[in-house]
């Protein structure tokens, strides 16, 4: 089980993951270009970018458990790519909100963030992700030091939690999808708590 990739294998694997995380965006761009996003293309874009951001956040959180269970310590190196791709989709999601949804009407946007709880949540999740993305490079990791960096990056659990609430408060009646996300997130959190307790 404890397999370790050679440098070449790692290179190929990493490029493959990079390609995979870009695929949803490439698909969206292609569909938008072909005017094939449906009757409400902006809603489709907004939904898809938000959905993928949440998916990549959860996949990022899956890295540590997988690493332990499979005894694949090298997986850790993949985490940054996955985390940054989650941020990439969150940023795209945020841009659809600013540009297409509010047409750069900053006053309306501000009042939405203040008055609409689901938008407050979405905006908060983005704000939480921001320092994580900005410190996901070698320079900042060194500068912060391992301990502080790790403490800061515990926010990686907070962001998807807020994002799930954001999704939950957005739907009108059918909460199945946000519920599935909530269940996966809860399982990941339970595993994390359990593994901490075990270590003691």
């Amino acid at each position, binding site marked *: 089980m404890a397999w370790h990739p050679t440098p070449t294998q790692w290179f190929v694997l990493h490029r493959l993951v990079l390609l995979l995380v870009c695929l949803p965006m490439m698909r969206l761009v292609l569909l938008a270009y072909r005017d094939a996003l449906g009757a409400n293309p902006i809603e489709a874009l907004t939904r898809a970018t938000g959905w993928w951001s949440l998916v990549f956040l959860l996949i990022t959180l899956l890295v540590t458990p997988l690493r332990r269970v499979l005894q694949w310590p090298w997986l850790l190196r993949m985490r940054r790519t996955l985390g940054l791709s989650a941020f990439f989709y969150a940023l795209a999601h945020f841009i659809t909100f600013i540009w297409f949804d509010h047409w750069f009407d900053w006053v309306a946007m501000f009042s939405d963030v203040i*008055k609409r709880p689901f938008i407050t949540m979405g905006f908060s999740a983005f704000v939480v992700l921001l320092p994580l993305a900005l410190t996901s490079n070698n320079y900042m990791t060194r500068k912060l030091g391992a301990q502080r960096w790790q403490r800061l990056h515990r926010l990686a659990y907070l962001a998807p939690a807020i994002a799930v609430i954001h999704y939950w408060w957005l739907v009108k009646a059918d909460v199945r999808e946000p519920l599935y996300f909530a269940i996966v997130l809860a399982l990941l959190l339970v595993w994390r708590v359990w593994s901490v307790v075990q270590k003691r």
Partner: protein
Amino acid sequence: MLIKPPADIDPSEITPRNVYEARRTFLRQAAALGLAGTMLPHATAQTASAAPVTEQGKLAALPGKSSTLSTTDKLTPHKDVVTYNNYYEFGTDKHQPAQYAHRLRTRPWSVMIEGEVKNKGPMNIEDLLKLAPMEERIYRMRCVEGWSMVIPWVGYSLAELMKRVEPTSKAKYVAFTTAMQPDTMIGLRIPALEWPYVEGLRMDEAMHPLTLLTFGLYGEVLPNQNGAPVRLVVPWKYGFKSIKSIDKIVLMETQPKTSWNVAAAHEYGFYSNVNPTVSHPRWSQATERRIGEDGFLAPKRKTLPFNGYAEQVAGLYKGMDLKKFY
């Protein structure tokens, strides 16, 4: 392997009962309008749909006289009207009704008339189609979710039916129910809303000439995903008030319990008139995205009070606090 004897008539050449009935209905109407000769080629169009209908020209024609109540706004493309729907009985995603609603059985169909009326009992869809002359009404449709369309509906004022069934003096409200077909409606398995779907109007709203009992759109009978064979269109209210695939109408003395109001009373009022100054608790109603027009290249547009029908309907709500009765 199953070997069938050669059939004398190809099964595809046998016209289903609902098709020829709709054809006859159409021909009668066309004849009544003196158009039968000029429009005969259309009469071969089909109403039965073994596959999803997302294009024009696949369903039976249902022409209507143009109406002065129509708006001059640019029409929303047919494709968008029939592929972007909220019809939770066929799934909560907006592309799902177009995928699944073709299974709905729209013949035989009758609408049960009950409650405070003199003429109770079932009314056949064929009789309903003949009850009054069809009109084409181009209305704005504003969804509570913040998007809108402009749709050329075909039907007649609900008032025509109301007069025919003769409500008693006790009738103050009208409740409408969507049909339940558990074997065709996959959405019924999800308790997103309480089934069956129920909507309602106050008597004066139901009698208002703008309130349309609707049988078609874009000159054809309604595609199933748009609420075939008969639906309501109340253009000054949020779209969910315009109930689809009606199989029951009950005249009532008290205000009916309507589905979205039961699901979330603080978000969806009984009246649900389009009102840019009363926000949905979770999002603003001040603006809307006109499907096919606003978004990539133009900002969303301002939502109008009563969806632009204030001149005709604001009087119905005189003296009412519309922030309280949202």
